[in-house]
């Protein structure tokens, strides 16, 4: 029987990412536990049970200490945790929101994260993303569900100077998006990239 190896969807792109200059840096974020939360009304009760104030303003995210809470809709959030396993996170969040009429589903395998850092990152993203990423309107704490190239993504702003973003993309679109990002970053690089995948 063939041995099953767990490899990252972007394993084959790592070498190219490492060759990119610091102005358009791309790094693959480590796996994190992710839970999709549906909850009708957010109040003090939910905050106390979850240990985090879920953001109610559209298109925002807040740090939760060990992860992030991302607004996905008026009754939907994405909770991530770097310290818990997906099973632990799902069980904890489910226990917290179930009495309030909510639900929690483990979606850790759905998306992977790419960290984009550097002064030209906004120019790279602007090649395939129609929303305004100027730090005046898309500063730290902003998020957006939109399309980047042809892929649906969740964009998170990590800094107030538009030089630090996280792109959450569905695993099956990750290869496409990695190719797209490398192509978009091409004009800001001086080293030719390999295409031996």
């Amino acid at each position, binding site marked *: 029987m063939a041995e099953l190896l767990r490899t990252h969807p972007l394993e084959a792109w790592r070498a190219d990412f490492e060759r990119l200059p610091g102005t358009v840096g791309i790094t693959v974020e480590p796996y994190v536990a992710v839970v999709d939360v549906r909850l009708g009304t957010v109040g003090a009760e939910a905050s106390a049970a979850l240990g985090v104030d879920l953001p109610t303003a*559209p*298109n925002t995210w807040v740090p939760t200490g060990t992860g992030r809470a991302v607004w*996905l*809709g*008026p009754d*939907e959030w994405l909770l991530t945790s770097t310290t818990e396993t997906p099973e632990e996170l799902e069980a904890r969040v489910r226990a917290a929101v179930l009495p309030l009429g909510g639900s929690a589903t483990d979606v850790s395998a759905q998306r992977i994260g790419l960290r984009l850092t550097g002064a030209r990152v906004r120019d790279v993203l602007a090649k395939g993303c*129609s*929303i305004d990423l100027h730090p005046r309107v898309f500063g730290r704490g902003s998020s*957006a*569900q*939109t*399309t980047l190239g042809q892929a*649906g993504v969740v964009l998170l702003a990590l800094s107030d100077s538009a030089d630090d973003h996280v792109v959450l993309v569905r695993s099956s679109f990750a290869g496409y998006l990695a190719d797209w990002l490398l192509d978009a970053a091409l004009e800001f690089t001086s080293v030719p990239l390999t295409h031996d995948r």
Partner: protein
Amino acid sequence: MQLIACPWCGPREEVEFSYGGQAHVPYPDSPAELSDEEWAHYVFFRDNPKGRFAERWNHSAGCRRWFNAIRDTTTYRFERVYRLDDPKRGGTELASSRKEGTAP
């Protein structure tokens, strides 16, 4: 590209949205008593006005929420968007609208 103002996410490009047809089509009061023809009218028959039209839209690439919009079918201009729980826009203001609770 045309921008559509999602009631939650704000103005986004048109490609992020999908169309949901005519809004405010009332479910029959007594569905069990409807004839096949009346069912067909409820399921398949929609207004096709020239002018202002109440429609359903879904922000499918963004927050994935349904909302309603008043759009002019001749100019493609969105006059207003509103959430599903907002009160219905007065039907008489629209170019054409189906009256609630009456058979077609």
